[in-house]
């Protein structure tokens, strides 16, 4: 990512944040209209969580098809970022729930489903930690990610709709769901967050590749030394 993009991302997010607190009108119909501003930050985090976990499934599928270690690294990074945004979505959601519904945790279907999503990916990391061999770890974790994917789809789309929810459904993409000012700010913040996501993704990938190169170099150095030689 070029320096200009990074600077622009910073300015953009700062501007949207300021707009969310000053330009955006308080949302009527909420218990505390001022607190509804958090929706602008909460929803993009939740959407990005979903995108990250989707990317994880895609890269896992790609790994199983190609057995390219790079796809495995990308799947792992996607899962990490998904976890990070899931935590952010949960924390912002909890804060709003405390204001709006009187309790930080209501076992609302969407709250349940994001906890379960975090469990899926926590299990994914545990699995990665418990297999030593690299290619085997990549294979098993990719298989697990693809197995967990149908469960995830169920938890995100089907479950909140069969059980009564405090969350609204279908507001994001329907024409009448959101006030235009909210729509602009929300998607504006989303755009900034996507840029941050891409940036973090690339950084993590660079670290991963550097680590791989370092391992390789150490490996070749070890091979060059005669066994049992004294320095």
């Amino acid at each position: 990512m070029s320096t200009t993009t990074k600077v622009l991302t910073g300015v953009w997010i700062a501007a949207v944040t300021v707009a969310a607190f000053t330009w955006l009108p308080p949302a009527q119909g909420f218990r505390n209209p001022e607190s509804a501003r958090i929706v602008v930050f909460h929803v993009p985090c939740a959407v990005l969580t979903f995108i990250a976990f989707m990317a994880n499934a895609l890269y896992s599928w790609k790994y199983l098809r190609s057995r390219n270690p790079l796809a495995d690294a990308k799947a792992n990074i996607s899962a990490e970022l998904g976890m990070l945004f899931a935590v952010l979505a949960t924390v912002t959601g909890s804060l709003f729930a405390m204001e709006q519904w009187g309790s930080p945790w209501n076992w609302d279907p969407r709250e349940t489903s994001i906890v379960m999503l975090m469990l899926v990916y926590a299990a994914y990391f545990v699995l990665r930690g418990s297999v030593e061999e690299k290619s085997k770890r990549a294979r098993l974790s990719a298989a697990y990610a693809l197995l967990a994917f149908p469960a995830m789809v169920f938890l995100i789309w089907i479950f909140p709709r069969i059980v009564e929810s405090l969350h609204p459904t279908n507001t994001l993409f329907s024409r009448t769901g959101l006030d235009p000012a909210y729509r602009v700010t929300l998607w504006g913040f989303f755009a900034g967050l996507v840029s941050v996501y891409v940036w973090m993704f690339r950084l993590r990938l660079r670290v991963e590749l550097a680590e791989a190169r370092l391992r390789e170099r150490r490996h070749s150095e070890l091979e060059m030394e005669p066994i049992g030689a004294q320095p």
Partner: protein
Amino acid sequence: MSRSSGWAREAQAVFAKDCLLELRTRVALGAVVLFAVTSVVAAGFALAPPSGVAGDVKAALLWVVIFFAAVAGLSRVFVVEEETRTADALRLAVSPVGVFVGKLAFNTVLMWVLCALTVPLYLVLLEAPVVHWGLFVVVTFLGSTALACATTAVAAIVAKASMRGALFGVLSFPVALPPLLVAIHGTKAAWMANAGWRAAIGDIHVLVGFMLVIVPASLLVFEHIWSD
């Protein structure tokens, strides 16, 4: 001979082999049923007298018992192949599809036996207020089958990793959660006079749909898990 009957015969052979082994040692069945009976008795003690406990608590508890009993035994089909080092022989003799379908059939039957033995005990000890018997049997049948479908491929993953026992529970919970939630919902409906089939028909659809999705997904990834 056509290809499809090929894997079906292989699956049958794997299933028959696993049943024979199980009848000789009774390790999986013993672990699963003993675990379930122990937890049913523990629940009975903890909730005595059970008449004061709400029906939905009992419905949730029933499925928690079934799920954890399943976790105690369902990984065995694959773990035993790795432990006795027979996995390679099986890989040579049978196609991956045959292995998976055979093992899935075995786990499904194991779940049915588990439910047939422990659910009546649970109903008696905890005085479960079953109203719609037909619905209850259907939900239990579909729920236990769906749990077997969800966890068999996870068992294959776990058999290849270290710390198998602990890992199986951790990994299978998220995958088994959708059928578990729906089965609890359906069981509650079967235990309430004013609910019944109309309230549970969505649950039955979701259980069947879940199986129709998770089994092909498992088959797709199983080849990659199974082949070294």
